[in-house]
């Protein structure tokens, strides 16, 4: 298990470093259109060939990876903080507040996610630059993705509320927010970390889903979702196996995350 975790760490590290070094490794850039060579096979100039508009696929994979790997954790951070604020506090306070928060969370979880994302995205201003649009997309993911984590944190905080050390702290005169911040929150850390790590692959896949529908990151910025759209309508993979690289990369990164997560979950359980 340890070796699998190490391998997963190494893979994620290598992928992160490569994507951050995209400017040097793939100087063609993600937007430049080589219109004389659309859909070209791999060559010395274009290692993974070009996409339908003649853009260097290798550069787009690296830049797309950078966007997904940088912004998905940011969105995960937003959603985890929201979950901690809402679920953690409600669980700690308990009573009617816990029931209200649980009801609100359940309602939020029952909403059709994808349609909600599409609706919210359609309401956004049109004149956002591609970079702003990508930030907005992940911010929406973060703002809408807190509910499942909030439920777990509410249960965790509520359990901690009646634990011996909290009772002892309360008996010693520690009350209110200080009790929450000093005694409850630090003990919620393992759950928070686990929720944070779980959210990252969820948001990566959510963006990929939106991208496949053509509603993800705005052109010409690449993202994994946009890159996966290239596979749409492919009848045979034997002819152009290099087009599978974004999909393979997504699977490898997701598997690495899952490997790390299973270890994290075991630690929390212990």
């Amino acid at each position, binding site marked *: 298990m340890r070796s699998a975790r190490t391998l997963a760490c190494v893979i994620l590290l290598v992928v992160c470093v490569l994507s951050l070094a995209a400017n040097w490794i793939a100087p063609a850039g993600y*937007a430049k*259109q080589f*219109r004389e060579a*659309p859909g070209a096979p791999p060559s010395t100039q274009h290692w993974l060939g070009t996409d*339908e*508009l*003649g853009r260097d696929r290798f550069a787009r994979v690296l830049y797309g990876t950078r966007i997904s790997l940088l912004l998905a954790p940011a969105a995960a951070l937003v959603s985890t903080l929201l979950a901690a604020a809402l679920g953690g506090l409600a669980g700690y306070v308990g009573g009617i507040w816990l029931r209200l928060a649980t009801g609100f969370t359940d309602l939020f979880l029952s909403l059709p996610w994808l349609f909600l994302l*599409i*609706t919210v995205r*359609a309401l956004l201003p*049109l*004149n*956002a*630059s*591609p970079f702003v*649009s990508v930030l907005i997309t992940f911010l929406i993911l973060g703002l809408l993705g807190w509910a499942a984590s909030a439920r777990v944190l509410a249960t965790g905080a509520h359990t901690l509320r009646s634990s011996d050390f909290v009772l002892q702290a309360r008996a010693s005169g520690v009350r209110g927010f200080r009790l929450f911040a000093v005694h409850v929150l630090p003990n919620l850390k393992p759950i928070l970390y686990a929720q944070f790590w779980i959210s990252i692959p969820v948001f990566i896949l959510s963006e990929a889903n939106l991208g496949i*529908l*053509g*509603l993800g990151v*705005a*052109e*010409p910025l690449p993202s994994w979702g946009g890159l996966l*759209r290239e596979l*749409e*309508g492919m*009848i*045979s993979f034997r*002819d152009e196996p290099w087009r599978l690289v974004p999909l393979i990369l997504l699977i490898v990164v997701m598997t690495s995350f899952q490997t790390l997560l299973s270890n994290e979950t075991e630690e929390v359980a212990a």
Partner: protein
Amino acid sequence: MSRRMFSRLLLCLSLLTGITAAQDGTVLRFCLRAEPKTFDPLKVDDDSSLTIRYLTGGVLVRANRQTQALEPELAESWKISKDARQITFKLRHGVRFSDGSPFSAEDVAYTVTRLMDPELHSSTGDAFRSGNGTVTTKILAPDQIAVAFSAPVVGLDRLFDQVAILSAHSAKKEATVLGPFMVAEYKPGANILLKRNPNYWKRDAQGRPLPYLDSIRLDIQPNRDVEVLRFRRGELDLINSIDTEYYDRLAASQPAVVHDAGASLDSEFLWFNQVANAPIPAYKRSWFRSASFRRAVSGAINRDDLSRVVFNGHAQPAFGPVSPANKFWFNSRLHSELYKPEAALQRLQGDGFRLQDGTLRDKDGNAVEFSIVTNAGNKYRERMAVLIQEDLSKIGIKMNVVTLDFPSLIERIAQKFNYEAAILGFQNVDLDPNGQMNIWLSSAENHAWNPQQQTPATAWEGEIDRLMREQASATDAKKRKAAFDRVQEIVVEQAPFIYLINKDALSAISPSVAGASPVILHPQTYWNAERLTIHSTTQASR
């Protein structure tokens, strides 16, 4: 010649030709993309129902999909009055419905009366409505009928191409047909089986009864990937309309099955929002209302690249509102907008714009930046937008591409007018410009750049209104053509729509189908379904 030798000769002949006329058991198989909404030919409003109407309905006149000329069908001849208010048909003798009952002027009268019944809400009937009065029919003889309208109807005879004649007396109205096939079986969600109409009136040059096919099986299949896979596996005989990507993939493995019939009537275009109360900044509205700005944008777009890169050459740079495929109505004096970014920049500079550090600015110093919306999931439009984005960046214009789900897009462009520019397309099925009245009249809903105007906002829109009404009321084809030619010229001069490309009509037909000759008009591949055959060797192996 001995009997044995004769039979061998027959066998050789049949192997050589591989086909026979009126083959028993021959089935043509292709897909409908959706469930048909109706089997009533007068209420047809969707592609699937249109296909069934085309294959089963008998019409008085038929527009030949290859020559685009009108040809007699159930009517041997017809005559339109000088004021274009009345048409008189002389009907064909000896024609019988699929149930064996005779066809007469009574059936035409019944069909026209039902078609024009306001309660029916027939879109086919709407095309005939040019005035408020009623439509009357007068049976002059069992084989002669006059249909009179309260106001002139332009292109009257051509409209009857869409009117499938119903039986006045049969109890099973929709099932009793005059076309080459009739609906034999319908399994919702699965398929529709059309069988040969045993009483079909038409015969081929050798006097053999048509249709040659025994039946047509229409599988309901919305997924195009599955449709192409099934075609490749030999489970389908044709794909009526196919995307560029699938076309190229099929062409790579089976070059004999794909057909590019050339530029179709369909066009893709972009336009700027010119609505007076649209929630966009005033300085942007003034750009969008400037013909120089629109022409400059048009000139900065490399249409050849759109055709070559996005459609892999299966599209033609667009000239204007009418595709060159529309042989009669296309204005041949028009030329496709040439890609000249330098000239586009000069045109903009003449309008007070200036290029500063790679950014185009208007006379007040505002950077020229706008967003363009299109429907998410249409990869061809998305790709065109990305190429245009790069083209415009060369003259300092920043364009943001926004893809929206279709309901949100329609809400923005048709209800709230909360957008700056859009890319969409028209699927034209009508050759006659009357079919475009709902686009060109300034009061029309589909006058996309500034719809439903009380009075024309500009002189040139007023001029288009006048010319469109003039062509709609003229009965002389030359006068109509002259008026619509001028409309096309104004549209190119003013560029309210910036036409980009006309897509080619692409299809795939199995080599086992004989007699197919794909065309650009709907239905591209099976327009001559009654004369299609399946090679007997192929049929035997099924």
